[in-house]
């Protein structure tokens, strides 16, 4: 096939290292994202284990209060900003162009820039450990604890500037996803035929673009308070510490859905394929995702019930928060209905998907509980909240990440993960997860506050805490099993072939791993399941689906009314065009590095700021002037 001849004809890379450093290929960048973020997950996991060891017994002195504060802050910051959010971006990076039949993202260089900013931002945050202590104010860093009088050290500055870097990275990424999904869909792929993962990535990109600037503003004002002597967050100076909470949660609550919507997308891909049925209620799943995205901007103050909001505000935010349960439940019923009467194939990926539905449901229900204002007054800042949050973030997003890992590993590497080790991983994860986090509900209702580094033996919290620590260790062993599985399967795993799961979306129409140009040709897209149509010409979806034929006239088909014309340029002897290879460039990397240098300069010396900005300007010019015309 043409693909193989080109692969050997492509210029041999002088250095595999530089081929990765200079890559603009969305698949390589996706792999970089997945590996980097999983490394941060391991670091955040070690921090979690340290906390659990500290809390295993009463009056423990393993960690002092200072170290404990740093570790829970870095655990939260890492898991949210350096792991869950970007690993879902990693999946999106790898999969979205393949799923919509594109060769790459809309702006490959910008994509590269996003990745390097993420890596540098993460490293920047972690250098704080070496520079006199990590941030220690919790992952949502409430003012006035963060202003200079109460936090005179540099650690908060690392946190602020690190979040600014990560903010730029994710805003750039969201712009890229939006342009890609708007403009690079294959002929025929109207909105109503996009895979649900693409739908959810689209909604997530909108949320990121709209919400992230709020965090950037909040952090910038905090920086001004700390270094310029303004008083935005200080009541004495005419400001208001509550301003921080409003700005932070105006970002923070959409953020929760930025973390869960792509997970919904993954589950919506995995469940149908392993139930051997099309997704039940495609449009309901897609539109409920849009509804969740919209509502997520109207609920931020439910994080602030305890601060004394006006009664009308409390009623509004309680009602809007409960409303979100409706579109979420729609999705859950859709997944269940997809499995109903399906021919279930209980692979590791499917186990994780089913586990997701059950565990996330618990997190969703406790979410409705804390939306009830008087209950929230009782439960806030207790372990009940920690339980709720982890059922959503781990029982939800994390299990979906594992489901996605088992599902797409064959596509990314060409080899399958071991199903036997996979089932071991499933069991350890479900037992460990529920043993760690379910008792936290109880502990919270018994009155144990979150973020205390130790506790007295009297209230009877010790056995529960000890059980949780055992659960955390089991969970950790599960992660080790997964790692062993990955490393063994990379070398000796069963060859996957193009389409190991008999799946239906376009990413399975190319080789595993895909060539740098993704596709020479791909099946025509006449429904949401183009590969089903290809494999079952006697019973294609598009013949039955009234709604799809209706959406088929969406704007996607205006431009490609005829046969798409091959792009100009060199071609094979038979006239078909040579695929365009992803370019290699270092400008975005240089720009990211220069920006980080400038931020380091903010903490070190003003000369470094100036030097960083000059190099950044040079890199930006170099980038733009060498951009190849479309």
């Amino acid at each position, binding site marked *: 096939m043409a693909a193989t001849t080109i692969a050997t004809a492509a210029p041999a890379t002088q250095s595999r290292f530089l081929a990765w450093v200079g890559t603009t290929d969305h698949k390589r960048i996706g792999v970089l994202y997945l590996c980097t973020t999983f490394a941060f997950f391991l670091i955040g996991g070690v921090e979690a284990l340290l906390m659990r060891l500290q809390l295993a017994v009463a009056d423990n002195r393993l960690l002092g209060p200072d170290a404990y504060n740093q570790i829970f802050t870095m655990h939260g910051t890492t898991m949210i900003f350096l792991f869950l959010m970007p690993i879902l971006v990693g999946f999106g990076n790898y999969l979205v162009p393949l799923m919509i039949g594109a060769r790459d993202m809309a702006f490959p260089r910008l994509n590269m820039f996003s990745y390097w900013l993420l890596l540098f931002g993460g490293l920047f945050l972690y250098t704080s450990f070496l520079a006199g202590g990590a941030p220690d104010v919790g992952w949502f860093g409430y003012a006035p604890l963060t202003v200079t009088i109460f936090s005179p050290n540099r650690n908060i500055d690392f946190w602020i500037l690190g979040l600014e870097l990560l903010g730029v990275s994710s805003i750039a990424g969201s712009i890229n996803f939006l342009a890609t999904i708007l403009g690079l869909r294959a*002929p025929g792929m109207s909105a109503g035929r996009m895979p649900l993962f693409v739908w959810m990535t689209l909604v997530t990109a909108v949320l990121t673009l709209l919400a992230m600037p709020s965090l950037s*503003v909040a952090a910038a004002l905090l920086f*001004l308070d700390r270094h310029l002597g303004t008083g935005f967050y200080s009541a004495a*100076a005419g400001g*208001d510490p*509550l301003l921080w909470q409003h700005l932070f949660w105006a970002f923070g609550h959409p953020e929760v859905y930025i973390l869960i919507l792509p997970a919904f997308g993954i589950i919506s891909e995995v469940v149908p394929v392993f139930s051997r049925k099309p997704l039940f209620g495609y449009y309901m799943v897609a539109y409920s995702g849009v509804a969740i995205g919209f509502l997520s901007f109207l609920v931020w103050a439910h994080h602030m019930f305890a601060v004394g909001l006006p009664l009308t505000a409390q009623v509004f935010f309680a009602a809007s928060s409960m409303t979100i349960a409706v579109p979420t439940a729609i999705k859950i019923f859709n997944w269940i209905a997809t499995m109903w009467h399906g021919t279930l194939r209980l692979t590791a990926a499917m186990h994780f998907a089913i586990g997701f539905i059950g565990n996330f449901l618990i997190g969703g229900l406790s979410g409705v509980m804390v939306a009830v204002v008087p209950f929230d007054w009782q439960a806030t800042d207790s372990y009940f909240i920690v339980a709720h949050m982890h059922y959503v973030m781990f029982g939800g997003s994390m299990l979906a990440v594992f489901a996605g890992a088992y599902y797409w590993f064959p596509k990314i590497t060409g080899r399958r993960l071991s199903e036997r080790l996979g089932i071991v991983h499933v069991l350890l994860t479900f037992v460990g997860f529920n043993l760690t986090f379910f008792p936290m509900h109880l502990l919270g209702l018994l009155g144990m506050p979150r973020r205390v580094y130790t506790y007295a033996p009297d209230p009877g919290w010790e056995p529960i805490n000890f059980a949780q620590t055992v659960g955390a260790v089991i969970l950790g062993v599960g992660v080790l099993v997964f790692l062993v599985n990955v490393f063994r399967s990379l070398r000796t795993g069963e060859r996957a072939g193009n389409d190991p799961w008999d799946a239906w979306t376009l990413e399975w129409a190319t080789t595993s791993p895909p060539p740098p140009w993704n596709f020479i040709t791909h099946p025509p897209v006449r429904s949401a399941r183009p590969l089903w149509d290809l494999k079952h010409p006697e019973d294609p979806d598009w013949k039955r689906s009234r709604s799809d034929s209706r959406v088929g006239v969406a*704007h996607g088909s205006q431009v490609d009314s005829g046969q798409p014309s091959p792009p100009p340029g060199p071609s094979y002897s038979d006239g078909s065009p040579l695929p365009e290879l992803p370019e290699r460039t270092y400008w975005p990397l240089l720009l990211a590095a220069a920006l980080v240098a400038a931020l380091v300069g903010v903490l070190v010396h003003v000369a470094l700021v100036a030097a960083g900005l000059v190099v950044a300007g040079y890199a930006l010019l170099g980038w733009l002037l060498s951009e190849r015309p479309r």
Partner: protein
Amino acid sequence: MSASGAAVPATQHHVAPFGKSLDWWGFVLFLVSEALLFLYLITAYVYLRWLSPVSPPMALPDRELTLPSINTAILLGSGVVAHWANTGLDRDDRRRLAGGFVATIALGLLFLAGQGYEYTHASFTPQNSIYGACFFTLTGLHGLHVAFGAAFLLVLLLRVRAGAFSSEHRFPVQAGTLYWHFVDAVWVALFVLLYLI
């Protein structure tokens, strides 16, 4: 196999959403994120001035309006000039483009000079009044955008002098002009919120 089986050649297939190029969409989405930065900052100011249950009513200094009004006229005028320069490219008139951009940059720098004068003669500081903190943060961020926009136009100008851009290939010029209009629009909002009400 039926007609459905015919494989489609894969291209980096560009739909033009709403008739606009992907570059245009990318740039406009970037401007959206920029606009949101200002929007959230303005929200913070509005919150502190009118909504906060904690902070006392915001004390306003005497606000001198003459210089800011002239400055507003300068900036809005520069927007008209930038538009005039950009439309010159419709007929490949690079002289008009270059001359217009020179004038736009000059007016932008004049605006910054006026802003600098205002900063040094203000009766308040970012530290001694919360209005001052909001004022300097908002206008400071805006001033940085004016400076960046002027640098953007300067790079475009140098490239025009080197013979770049035509009525066919003009996206960077459009982007620069759009950026300048964006900076203008933000200023109108700031002028109303910080000086007039």
